[in-house]
C-alpha cells in the first residue's frame, strides 16, 4: 500500500482537494461524509492550506484537522510577494503538520498558478519538502483563464518559473482556458474543472495501488514524469456506453480528454496509459495498435491494464511534454501582462506628483 500525500494550496487547490475527498466517498451526496468512508486504496493523507479562512470553511469533505489556516487577513490578494512572506511566517507550522504525518511514497501539491496563496506558497513549500523529505513531489498546477486579468497571468508566469526552480519532480498542467470548452456558467465550469482533475488523480492513485493484468507502478510513473521538459498533463476518458477500447484511448489522448491543450503525438516525451474495465473490452490488438501508434511518436509508453468486471472501459493517460505551444503562448501573454502592470505602476507613481499640488493647502481651512 502506497503512502500518498496530497496538499491543496490556496482556494483552487483547496477546492480540488475537497473534490478529491468527496469523490473518494464513491458518491457525490453531501451526506456521504456522515454515512460512508473514503475508499482510498492507498494510505492517503490530505492537507489544505490557505490564508483565507473562508475558503477553508467552504470545504465540506476534508477533515478539520487536515485544514491549515495561515492567518493573513482574508487572503493575500493575489500578491505573491505577500504570500511568500506569509509562508515564511508559517513555514514551521506547515512543515510540522506535514512531517507529523510520517513519511510518504509520493506527494502531489495542487494549486492554481494565478492566485495569491497557492501560487506563492506552492513553490516554497515544495522547496522545503524537497529539502527535508526524500519522496517525489509532483505539482498539479491549474492555469488561469486568459481573460482573468494581468495580475493572474503575471502570477502564473512567475509561479511556474518558481515551481521549476523549487526542485519539483514534475508539473502536471491543467488549463482553465482549455477546459472552458466544457461550457456552462462560471460556477459549474469551475466545479467541472475541479471534478475532472479530482477524478483523474483518483484514477491514477487507484491504478498505482491496484493489481494489474499489465503492470504500471509508481516507478513507471516517476520515469514518465522525469521525461520531457518537466511539465505533463493527464488525459482521461470513460465510455458511457459500450465502445471499442481503441476509441476510448483515442478520446483520452484527444483535447476532449486532456487537461491541457497539447498534441500528444507531437509534443509528448513519455507516456503512460492505464486502461480499466471489463475483460471483454480489453482487445489486445486494439490496445497494442493504439500503444504502438503513440510509442512510434513518443518513444516510451508504459501501459497498465486493470480488469474490473462489468465496468465500461476507462483510460487514463499521463503525458510528459517536450514542448508546449500553449505554454509558450501563455508566457507571451504573461509578458504583455507584466509590462502592462509595470507601466501602470509607473503611471501611478507619476500620479504621486499630483499629491504635491494637493499638499499646498495642507493645514488651511476654507473661509466663507
Amino acid at each position, binding site marked *: 500500500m502506497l503512502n500518498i500525500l496530497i496538499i491543496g494550496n490556496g482556494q483552487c487547490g483547496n477546492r480540488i482537494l475537497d473534490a478529491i475527498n468527496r469523490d473518494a466517498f464513491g458518491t457525490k451526496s453531501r451526506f456521504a461524509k*456522515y454515512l460512508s468512508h473514503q475508499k482510498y486504496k492507498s494510505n492517503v493523507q490530505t492537507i489544505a492550506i490557505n490564508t483565507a479562512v473562508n475558503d477553508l470553511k467552504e470545504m465540506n469533505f476534508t477533515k478539520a484537522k487536515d485544514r491549515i489556516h495561515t492567518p493573513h487577513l482574508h487572503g493575500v490578494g493575489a500578491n505573491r510577494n505577500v504570500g511568500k512572506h506569509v509562508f515564511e511566517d508559517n513555514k514551521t507550522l506547515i512543515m510540522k503538520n506535514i512531517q507529523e504525518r510520517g513519511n510518504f511514497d509520493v506527494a502531489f501539491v495542487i494549486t492554481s498558478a494565478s492566485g495569491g496563496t497557492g501560487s506563492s506558497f506552492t513553490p516554497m513549500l515544495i522547496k522545503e519538502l524537497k529539502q527535508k523529505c526524500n519522496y517525489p513531489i509532483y505539482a498539479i498546477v491549474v492555469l488561469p483563464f486568459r481573460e482573468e486579468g494581468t495580475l493572474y497571468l503575471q502570477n502564473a508566469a512567475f509561479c511556474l518559473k518558481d515551481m521549476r526552480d523549487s526542485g519539483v519532480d514534475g508539473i502536471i498542467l491543467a488549463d482553465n482556458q482549455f477546459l472552458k470548452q466544457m461550457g456552462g456558467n462560471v460556477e459549474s465550469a469551475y466545479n467541472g474543472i475541479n471534478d475532472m482533475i479530482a477524478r483523474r488523480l483518483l484514477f491514477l492513485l487507484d491504478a498505482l495501488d491496484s493489481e494489474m493484468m499489465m503492470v504500471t507502478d509508481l516507478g513507471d510513473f516517476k520515469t514518465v514524469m522525469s521525461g520531457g521538459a518537466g511539465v505533463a498533463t493527464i488525459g482521461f476518458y470513460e465510455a458511457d456506453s459500450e465502445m471499442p477500447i481503441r476509441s476510448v484511448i483515442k478520446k483520452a489522448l484527444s483535447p476532449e480528454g486532456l487537461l491541457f491543450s497539447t498534441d500528444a503525438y507531437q509534443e509528448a516525451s513519455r507516456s503512460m496509459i492505464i486502461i480499466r474495465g471489463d475483460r471483454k473490452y480489453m482487445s489486445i490488438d486494439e490496445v497494442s495498435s493504439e500503444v504502438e501508434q503513440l510509442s512510434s511518436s513518443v518513444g516510451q509508453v508504459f501501459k497498465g491494464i486493470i480488469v474490473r468486471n462489468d465496468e465500461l472501459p476507462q483510460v487514463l493517460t499521463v503525458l510528459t511534454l517536450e514542448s508546449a505551444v500553449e505554454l509558450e503562448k501563455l508566457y507571451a501573454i504573461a509578458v504583455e501582462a507584466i509590462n502592462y502592470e509595470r507601466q501602470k505602476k509607473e503611471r501611478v507613481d507619476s500620479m504621486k506628483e499630483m499629491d504635491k499640488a494637493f499638499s499646498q493647502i495642507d493645514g488651511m481651512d476654507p473661509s466663507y
Partner: protein
Amino acid sequence: MKHFGKTLTLISLAVLLLLISAGSASGKILFNDTIAEGDGYQINNYVIDVAEVFPDYDSVTLHVYEGASKTPKYDKMISVDGSYKFAIEGEDVEVTVISVHSGIVPRTKLLITVTDGSFINSKTLGVVSGGHTEAEFSGTPVLEITKTVDMDRIGAGDVVTVQVSVKNTGDDEATKVIFSDPTPAKFVLQQTLISPTGQISLDKGETRLIYTYTLKATESGTFVLSPTTAIYSNSIGDDFPQASSNTPVITVEDSSKKANLDITLAVDEYTVDRKDDLQGTIRIKNTGESSASAVTVNLIVPTGMEYSDGDSGIEIISGVPTIYMESFGIQQEKEISFSLKAMDEGTYTLSTQNSYRFSDGVDPTPQIASSTSVTNAIYVKKGKYDHLLEQPVYIYLIPLIVIGVIAGLLFHRHRQYKF
C-alpha cells in the same frame, strides 16, 4: 304356717290404721279455736257468723253471709260434734262444732277446714270481731284512661294540648294509682299544666283529669302517641294489671322552610383515552324555601384519575378539591367547572360529598343536610400510544441505542469536518 299367719295379721292391721286415718281427714284446717258469740270468721267475701251459742243444748247457730249482704246465705244450728259443709268459690268448706262454753259471752270451739285453700286471700281471712257487719270485703277497681288531643292535624312547630283523664268504673276504690305518660318522639314538651303528684286514689265511679300539657311538633309525619298507663291496687292493697289509655294519632304537616340544594355532577365524556383530559361540571341550585349556609362540596376523585384544574371557586383542602360557599340564596344557581386527567385504565365514578346548613324556622338550631352526587361510570381506555409502553424494554432500548450510536457517529463526523 303359724309364722305366715302372724305376718298377715300385722299387714292387715297396718292397712286398717291407714284407712282410719284417711277417713278422718277432710282438708286444710283453717281454724281450730274458740270464737265468741257475735263474732265471725271471714273467708274471702264470706263471713261465718257465730249467731248464737247454746251451752245448755250443746249447739250453735251459724249464719253464713256473702259479702255485705244483710241476709245470711246459710243459717244452720249445729250440735257439738256436728258439722256443716258449703262451697266457696268451688271449694268445700266444712265447719265442725267441737264444743260450746258458757260464760258472759258464750263461746264455741270450731274446726273449719277447706279442701283447697289456695283461693283464699290471706287479707280477708280470720276472726272478725262483731261479725259480718264489721268485715271488710275486697272489690275490683277498673280504671278507664282517656287521652285526648285538641287537634289531630297540625303543622310542624305547632303546639297541641294533650289531656289525660281517668275514671274508676270498678266496684272498689283504686289505691296507689301511679300514672306513666311518656313524651312522644318528634315532639317537645312545651308546658305542663296538670300532672299527678305521686300516688293517688280513685273512688269507685270517680273521674279525674290527670294530665294537661302541651307538645310542640318538631317534624312532619303521622305519629301515634304512646298510651298513658296506670298501675293501681284495690282497697285492700291487691295489685291489678296495668291500665292503658287510648293512643291518639296526630298528623304533623310539614310547615318548615327548608333549603334544598340540588347538586349535580356531570362530565363531558364518559369514555376517554388514558392521559386525556376530562371536563367536569358541578351545578348547584337551591330549590328550597330557605337559604343555605356553609355549603361544602368535596369532589372525590378516584384513584386512577387526577384533578388538573378548576374554576377559582375550587380550593384544594387536604388534597381534596373543595367548593365552599358561605351562603347560598333561594333559587340561586351556580356552575363550577373543573378538569381531570385520566391516568390509569379502568372504570371510575366521580362523586361529591355535599353538606350545608339552613334554618327551617321551626327549630332554633340550624339544620344540617348532606347528600352525595355520583356520575355514571367513566370508562378510561388505553391511550393512543399506550401499546408502545406494553412492549418489552429491549424494543425501546435497541432503537434508542442504535439512534444514539448513529447520532454519536454523526456528531463525531460533524466535529471531524467542522472547521
